[in-house]
């Protein structure tokens, strides 16, 4: 029952994140989705990831979103669409149908496999290359944050006059 409630709340807040007209509201709904996903992960027995998701997904990313929205300002482009709604729905139904066809019949028949080791063992010993790549990615992210922060120096209202400069 609890899982069904969490599922409903997650999907509603994800929908609101996409539908909200104001970007700030959208970012807050995204944080809510993130927190609910973290709760579901905790209930599935993955507390380490749940904590990281809650602090990074619902905390850090939301702060960065608010910061970026503050810098770029609100701009309402909801009326314009990348492609017709019907085409998007069609593609979505094809993708969802294929996923359901392949996943759902077998999802209740999955059995436990061989256990490879504890979390630190797998993370630090078996997947060393991945860990190194993650450190590299974190440096890339730091450069991204620096680029975001450096905008503060030239803090002034953005105008359309700069268009095409």
């Amino acid at each position: 029952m609890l899982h069904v409630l969490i599922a409903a709340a997650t999907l509603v807040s994800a929908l609101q994140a996409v539908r909200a007209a104001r970007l700030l509201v959208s970012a807050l709904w995204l944080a809510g989705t993130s927190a609910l996903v973290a709760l579901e992960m905790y209930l599935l027995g993955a507390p380490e990831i749940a904590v990281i998701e809650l602090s990074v997904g619902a905390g850090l990313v939301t702060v960065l979103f608010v910061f970026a929205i503050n810098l770029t300002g609100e701009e309402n482009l909801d009326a314009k669409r990348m492609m017709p709604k019907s085409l998007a729905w069609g593609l979505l139904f094809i993708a969802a149908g294929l996923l359901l066809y392949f996943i759902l019949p077998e999802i209740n028949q999955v059995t436990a496999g061989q256990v490879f080791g504890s979390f630190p063992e797998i993370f630090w010993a078996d997947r060393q290359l991945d860990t190194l790549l993650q450190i590299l990615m974190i440096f890339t992210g730091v450069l991204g944050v620096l680029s975001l922060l450096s905008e503060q120096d030239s803090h002034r209202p953005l105008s359309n006059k700069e268009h095409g400069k």
Partner: protein
Amino acid sequence: MTVSLPTVVVIIVLGLIGIGIYALLTTRHLIKVIVALQLLVKGAMLGLVLAGHLTGQQDLGQSLAITVIIADTIVAVIGMALAVQVRRVIGTLDLRSLTSLRR
């Protein structure tokens, strides 16, 4: 009718991925695109954790999900830095304005 736990979680996963793909396909706002990507990746991540839960290899699922979290956060940060620069240089966050090719 009782719904099994894996089915409920698969519905969350598919819902998040579906909403993410739909938003990616339709929105023209650069920051909304990042929101859509975040939703999509959260679905994928929950799928990894569910797979770990079902096969009894929770630690493997978690160690894969941590990679996804880091990659996803970096993508969001880079995307937002890009959005700020695009807004500064072009003056709008409309994805269609980014192209220099005339349609």
